[in-house]
C-alpha cells in the first residue's frame, strides 16, 4: 500500500467522522462581570465541522460589537477526532446593568442549532477614585452657563500612569455648539496623590448657537494598556516592553468621560441696538489711511481692523456712511484667525479705496458697531477714530476713470481693456522720404562684385610680383620694352649727328638687348641667324622674322659698311624698330 493511499484513506475517515458527529454551538466570554471601561471577548465555537457558516447573533443594542476573526481547529484524542471553528467578537459595553447574550444560532441541513446564553453584569467605572486608576480621562468647560455665541473652552485631558498603546479618541457630538479647535494637543506631566501622570490635553472653543439646555455627551477613548510580562529573563529592559517583542501583553480599555450640561442664556434685549454686529466677546477697532495727502481723482486706502477674542467668524463690515466727498470702492474683507493661546479670536480687516471728488480738507466718516461683552454682561460700543485727508487740485481730471479701472492700490488686478482702436497715423515729414526696395539695382551688383574683383586683382598682383622676384626670364621679358623705350631717348639724340655710326650701334644694341631680354639670353652677342633660329622656335610669323633680320642687317651695315642714311631714313628706320619691338613684345610672352 502506498503512502498516497494511506493519506486518502485518512481524509475519507475524517470526513466520515465529521459527518458522523452532530453539530453543536457554544457561546463563551472571557469574563461575565465587567465595568464600562472593560472590553469582553465573546467566542462562538462550532463543534463537529470546520465548514459551517457564520453563526447569527441576536442584536446587542447595549454593546458595541467588533468582529475579531475566526480560527479552525482539529483534535485527535484517543483515536477520536474532533474538529471545529471559533468566531471571536469584542463587546464594548455602553451602559451599566445585567445583560443576556444569546442565544446565537446556526443553520445546518435545514435545522437550526442554538447556542447557550450568557449573562453579563456591567458595573459603573466610577466606583474607584480616579487617582487610584492607571488611566483615566476628564472633560471640563470654562463655563456651564454661557450666553448664546459666547466662547467657552472645552478641555479634554487624558491622564496615564502606565504605558498605553493604540489610543483613539471619539469626541462627543457637540450638538447646538459650533466648535473651533484651539491649537495642537499639549502633553505635560503632573502628580496626583504623589503618583506621576502624563497628561495629554486637547482644547476646543465652543460657541452655543441656541439658548436653553445643551448636553455635551461623554468623550470615549479606546486604548490598550501595556502590561509587563512577569517572566522577563534576559531582556529586562523597558525597550522590550513593546508588545512587538512579545515580552508584554496589552489589555484593551474603553474610557468614558462624564457628560456636561450647559445652560445657555439668551443675549439680553436691554441695550441691544441696530448697531449690534452679532459679535460676543471682547473686540476693538482701529482705522488707518494709506495716504493722508493726495490729489483729486487719486486714491487712498482706508483700512478698518476689528480685533479681539470671541466669535470673530461672525464679523461683518460695519456700514460706511454715504459721503458726497468720496467715491468708495469696497475690497473683499479678510479674516485672520488666531486659534492658539487662551481663546479663539482673530482679526477682521475691511479695506476701502477712497477717491476724493473735491479738493480741500475732507473728513473720512467713522464707522461704529456694538458687541456683547459676556464678562460685563452688557453691550459695548466700538467706534473708529475720525480721520481727515488733505486733497490737492488735480491737473488731469481724466485720471479719475483710470483709478476706477485699476481698483484699489493694495491688490493688483488685470488691466481692464476699456476699448480698442488703431494707433494714430505718422504726421512727421520724414514720412515723405522715398524708400526704394529694388534688389536688382546696378549699385548693389557693383557693391557685390567690387570686393570679389579687388580680391582677384590683389591675388594676381601678388602672384605677378612673386614671379618677377623668382623668375628672372619672366622679369626680363616683362621689362624688355620698358628698357628699350628708355634707350630710345639716347638714340633720338644721335639721329641728327651727321656721319656718326653711333645711331646704328645704339639702335642695334638696343634691339639685340630687347630680343635678349625677351628670349632670356645674352642679347649683345646675337647674330641675325641666331635671332632667326630663336624666333622660329616661338612660332613667330616668317615675315616678321625676315623683317627683324633685315633691320638687324641694315643696322650692322650702317656700323661697318659706311652706308649712310638720310635723317628721314634714319627716323623711318627707328620707327620701324619701335613698331617691331612693340609687336614682338606682345607676341613673345613668357
Amino acid at each position: 500500500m502506498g503512502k498516497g493511499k494511506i493519506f486518502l484513506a485518512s481524509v475519507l475517515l475524517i470526513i466520515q467522522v465529521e459527518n458522523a458527529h452532530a453539530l453543536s454551538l457554544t457561546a463563551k466570554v472571557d469574563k461575565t462581570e465587567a465595568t464600562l471601561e472593560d472590553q469582553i471577548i465573546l467566542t462562538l465555537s462550532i463543534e463537529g465541522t470546520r465548514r459551517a457558516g457564520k453563526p447569527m447573533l441576536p442584536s446587542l443594542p447595549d454593546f458595541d460589537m467588533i468582529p475579531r476573526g475566526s480560527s479552525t481547529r482539529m483534535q485527535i484524542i484517543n483515536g477520536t477526532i474532533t474538529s471545529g471553528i471559533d468566531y471571536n467578537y469584542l463587546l464594548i459595553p455602553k451602559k451599566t446593568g445585567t445583560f443576556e447574550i444569546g442565544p446565537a444560532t446556526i443553520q445546518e441541513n435545514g435545522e437550526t442549532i442554538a447556542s447557550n446564553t450568557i449573562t453579563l453584569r456591567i458595573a459603573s467605572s466610577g466606583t474607584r477614585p480616579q487617582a487610584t486608576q492607571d488611566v483615566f480621562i476628564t472633560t471640563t468647560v470654562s463655563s456651564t452657563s454661557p450666553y448664546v455665541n459666547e466662547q467657552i473652552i472645552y478641555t479634554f485631558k487624558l491622564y496615564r500612569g502606565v504605558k498605553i498603546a493604540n489610543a483613539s479618541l471619539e469626541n462627543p457630538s457637540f450638538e447646538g455648539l459650533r466648535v473651533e479647535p484651539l491649537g495642537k494637543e499639549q502633553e505635560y506631566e503632573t502628580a496626583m496623590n504623589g503618583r506621576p501622570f502624563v497628561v495629554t490635553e486637547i482644547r476646543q472653543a465652543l460657541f452655543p448657537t441656541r439658548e436653553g439646555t445643551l448636553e455635551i455627551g461623554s468623550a470615549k477613548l479606546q486604548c490598550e494598556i501595556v502590561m509587563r510580562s512577569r517572566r522577563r529573563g534576559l531582556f529586562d529592559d523597558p525597550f522590550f516592553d513593546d508588545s512587538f517583542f512579545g515580552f508584554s501583553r496589552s489589555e484593551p480599555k474603553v474610557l468614558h468621560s462624564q457628560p456636561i450640561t450647559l445652560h445657555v442664556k439668551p443675549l439680553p434685549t436691554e441695550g441691544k441696538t441696530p448697531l449690534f454686529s452679532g459679535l460676543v466677546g471682547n473686540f476693538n477697532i482701529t482705522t488707518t489711511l494709506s495716504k493722508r495727502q493726495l490729489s483729486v481723482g487719486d486714491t487712498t486706502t482706508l483700512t478698518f481692523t476689528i480685533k479681539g477674542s470671541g466669535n470673530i467668524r461672525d464679523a461683518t463690515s460695519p456700514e460706511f456712511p454715504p459721503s458726497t466727498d468720496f467715491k468708495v470702492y469696497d475690497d473683499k474683507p479678510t479674516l485672520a484667525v488666531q486659534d492658539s493661546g487662551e481663546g479663539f479670536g482673530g482679526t477682521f480687516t475691511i479695506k476701502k479705496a477712497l477717491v476724493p471728488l473735491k479738493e480741500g480738507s475732507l473728513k473720512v466718516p467713522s464707522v461704529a458697531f456694538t458687541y456683547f461683552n459676556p464678562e460685563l454682561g452688557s453691550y459695548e460700543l466700538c467706534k473708529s477714530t475720525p480721520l481727515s485727508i488733505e486733497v490737492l487740485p488735480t491737473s488731469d481730471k481724466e485720471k479719475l476713470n483710470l483709478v476706477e479701472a485699476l481698483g484699489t492700490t493694495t491688490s493688483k488686478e488685470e488691466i481692464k481693456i476699456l476699448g480698442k482702436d488703431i494707433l494714430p497715423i505718422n504726421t512727421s515729414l520724414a514720412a515723405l522720404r522715398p524708400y526704394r526696395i529694388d534688389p536688382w539695382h546696378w549699385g548693389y551688383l557693383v557693391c557685390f562684385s567690387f570686393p570679389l574683383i579687388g580680391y582677384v586683382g590683389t591675388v594676381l598682383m601678388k602672384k605677378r610680383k612673386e614671379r618677377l622676384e623668382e623668375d628672372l626670364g619672366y622679369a626680363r621679358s616683362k621689362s624688355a620694352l620698358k628698357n628699350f623705350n628708355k634707350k630710345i631717348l639716347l638714340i633720338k639724340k644721335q639721329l641728327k649727328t651727321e656721319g656718326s655710326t653711333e645711331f646704328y650701334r645704339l639702335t642695334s644694341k638696343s634691339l639685340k638687348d630687347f630680343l635678349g631680354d625677351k628670349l632670356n639670353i645674352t642679347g649683345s652677342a646675337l647674330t641675325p641667324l641666331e635671332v632667326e633660329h630663336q624666333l622660329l622656335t616661338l612660332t613667330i610669323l616668317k615675315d616678321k622674322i625676315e623683317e627683324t633680320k633685315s633691320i638687324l642687317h641694315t643696322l650692322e651695315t650702317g656700323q661697318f659698311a659706311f652706308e649712310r642714311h638720310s635723317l628721314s631714313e634714319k627716323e623711318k628706320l627707328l620707327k620701324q624698330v619701335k613698331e617691331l619691338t612693340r609687336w614682338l613684345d606682345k607676341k613673345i610672352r613668357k
Partner: protein
Amino acid sequence: MIVKKTRILSIVALGLFLFLRTDPVPGQSQSAQLKPSHSQTIEALDTTTLFTEANKRYKEDTYSDAAQLYEKLILSGVQNGELYYNLGNSYFKMGMLGKAILSYRLAELYLPRDQDLKTNLVYAREMTKDKLESRPLFSFLNEFCFWYSKLNLTELLIVFLILNGLCWALALIRIFLRNEYYNYLFLIILSITVIVSISLGLKLYHHYYSIEGVVVAKEISVRAGNGINNTPLFQLHDGAEFKIIEQQGAWSKIELGDGKRGWIENRWIGTCQLESWPALTSSGAGT
C-alpha cells in the same frame, strides 16, 4: 599707367556716388526726378502740401479724402512704409478691412520692426470674419531667424553686402598675414555670410514668387475653376489672406493656410507685392 588707374578709380567713385546719393529733400517736387511707378499720370503737386492736407483730413475724420491723398502721394513715387501705414489707417477707419490689411502688409515690407504697425495689423486681423491659419515655414523663420523678420529686403541686402565685403577682405588678409586667428575669423564670417545669403534668397523668393493676397471685397465666392460658371467651393470675407499659386487672365488660383484651394477673380483681391497697390479702384460685394 597712372592716368589709366586714375580713370578707373573715377568711374568707380562716380558709380558709388550715384548709388549712394541722397534722396530728394522732402517738399521738393518729385515729378521731375522720379517717374511714377504706375502708368497713371499725376499732376505735379507739392508733396509736403499733399501730405499735410491728407493728415488734416484724417484728423477731421474725412477718411476717404485722406485715403485718396495718401494714394496720390504713393502713386507720385513717394513710396515708403509710413505712407502705406497712414493709408491703411484711413481704410481701417472707413471700414475697409481688406484694403487696410493690404496697406499694412505693404507697409510691413518697408517697416518690419514698427510696433505701431504690428499692433494695427493684429487688430485689423482680429476684426476679420474668417479664421485662417498661418504658414508654418514662415512662422518658423520669423521666430528663429530674427534677421529675416526684423530686416526688410534692402536692409538684409546691405547686411549681406557688408558681410560679403568683410569676407573677401578677410580672405585677403589671410593671404598676407598667415595667422590662425584670421582663419577662424574668416570661417565665422563666412558661415554668417552663407546663412544671411540663404535668408536673402528666401526673402527674394518670398517677395517675387511666393505672392500673397488679401480679399478687398465684403464677401466673395472661391470657385472650383477660373470662370463664373464653376461651382463655388467656399466663401471668403473682407481681409482674408491667402497665397496666390497661379494666375490665368482675370482669375487667380489661391491657397489658404489650411490647404483649401480655389479660384478667385482678380478684381476682388489685392496682392502683397511692391508697386502693386494702390491700383484697384473698385470695391464692394463680390459674388
